[in-house]
């Protein structure tokens, strides 16, 4: 059994475990209700009705899928340690790195599946309401999927060395910073103090930039999305995920479970 097969087995197991979590279904249900409620919300306006409906749908998808990614991700490692099942797994010919990557892959697949279900609900609601649907919407949802991949990596990273509560706080914090990092960078550029500008640049490069995955406005308003930008977003997501998982694996390999 090679390394990839072992990661696949762990991912498969994580996926099967995750879909048994009732919290997932509750959040999925809420997201579908929110996506559908866009129809009611849109009727409050006499113009831009389809745009409001789709803004609401895409916002609900992002909000709930990130919520699922973080709140399931933070318990990934902790639950295994808590139930002592990690000893059984690591006693097999499975490295800690493979364990971490397998856990991340399993949860990423789970949130992508949920994302696909939410996207399906969004498409049905849009079609029933007569709102236009195009390739841009698919691109926006794929980009949310890339954002989720990074968020799961971050949650897995924090889950590898701290308690679920702290991992949740850190993950949510980093996700928020990820949506603020461009503003923080712009603020730093306005400073006349060179150190502040340099620090702002450093923080901007270190922190995730989740706005690169946000193409809601473009999708809803039918604006062109640059394919080069999508390619860069893909490379960025993969790169950031790999970096985060390597860091997580380095910390996890030194962790003492006693």
């Amino acid at each position: 059994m090679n390394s990839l097969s072992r990661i696949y087995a762990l991912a498969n197991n994580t996926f099967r475990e995750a879909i048994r979590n009732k919290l997932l279904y509750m959040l999925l249900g809420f997201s579908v209700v929110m996506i559908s409620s866009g129809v009611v919300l849109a009727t409050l306006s006499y113009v831009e009705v389809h745009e409001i409906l789709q803004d609401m749908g895409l916002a609900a998808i992002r909000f709930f899928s990130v919520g699922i990614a973080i709140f399931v991700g933070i318990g990934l490692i902790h639950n295994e340690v808590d139930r002592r099942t990690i000893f059984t797994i690591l006693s097999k010919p499975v490295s800690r790195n493979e364990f971490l990557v397998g856990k991340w892959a399993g949860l990423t697949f789970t949130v992508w599946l949920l994302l696909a279900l939410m996207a399906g609900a969004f498409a049905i609601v849009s079609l029933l309401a007569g709102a236009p649907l195009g390739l841009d919407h698919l691109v926006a949802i794929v980009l949310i999927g890339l954002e989720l991949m990074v968020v799961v990596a971050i949650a897995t990273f924090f889950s590898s060395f701290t308690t679920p509560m702290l991992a949740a706080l850190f993950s949510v914090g980093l996700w928020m910073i990820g949506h603020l990092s461009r503003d923080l960078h712009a603020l730093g550029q306005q400073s006349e103090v060179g150190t502040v500008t340099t620090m702002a640049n450093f923080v901007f490069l270190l922190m995730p930039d989740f706005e690169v995955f946000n193409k809601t406005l473009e999708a809803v308003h039918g604006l062109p999305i640059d394919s080069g930008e999508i390619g860069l977003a893909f490379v960025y997501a993969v790169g950031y995920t790999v970096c985060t998982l390597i860091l997580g694996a380095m910390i996890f390999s030194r962790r003492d479970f006693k």
Partner: protein
Amino acid sequence: MSPKLIQVAALIAAVCATGWVHARLPNETRTDRGEAFVPAPHVIEAASLGFDAILADYYWLQAVQVAGVNDVIDADTASHLGKLVDVVTTLNPYVDHPYRFAAVWMTHSEEQVRDANLLLERAIEFHPEDWRNYFYLGFNQFYYLGDFEAAASALEGAVKNEGSPAYLPRLLARLKSQKGDIDVAEIFLRQLLVSTDDESEIAKIEGALDEIEIEHKARHLDRAREAYQQLTGYDILSVGDLIRGKHRVLQKLPSPEPDSMPASLRRGSVWELDREGRIVSTYLGARYEVHYSGIESAVFKPDEQSERQTKGPRGQEDEPRDG
């Protein structure tokens, strides 16, 4: 009593108590309480965490509610609407209608009109292909600010874009020749009238057209007055002199109220001479001027004008159409 019965009784009591309290909780909205706080656009933009579009929708729905619940859009309400639309268009500059929605209401002072123009300029930046934004900007520049050059420049943008009305080049030529008369204002207003289905906007435009109609009549009386002076060598003592006596110059006076006004709504207005000796209709109380011109003597009184306009229900579609 069994524990189960006690549980059920406690549940019923709790439900009744909660329902009683809920029914008495104040349910008025912030808008009902007259609170008009709107966060700074860039603060809310930074705090949106990627949810810019849905936040923009939230503030847009607030703007629609503010316009909907107020029978009269006074200066403060218009300013509130302007702030809301500023937030909306900062969060989501690709929205289309809100720019023109704000521009329609932000007409109570020169400052408001200039703020509305900033919004329209943002609209042009993000929708350079839409002639309507240029047209609204041109209208504001001409009608409220009296800047014919800027108005002509804005209309040039409208003319270049597909779908603009065929008569726009003629209007542009008149503006370029600096003929900022009420005829140009009337052309602008009639185009705005055909380009909207929004009942409140229609009422506002019709009010302005009524004023132009009365101004036309007043100018007709001015010409009759000149003829009277030439004939008699002295001025009239009252407007009625124009139709009385052996030197009368008119068969009858035109109606001092808009011709389209139903008899049941007529106010019994009359023609009279104001303190400066000008012929005015008591319907307006002043002679009509088309713009502020940035001077205090400007007689266009938007607050009075808006008070005359009773808003009707909002139409389903408010999009200006090609005239």
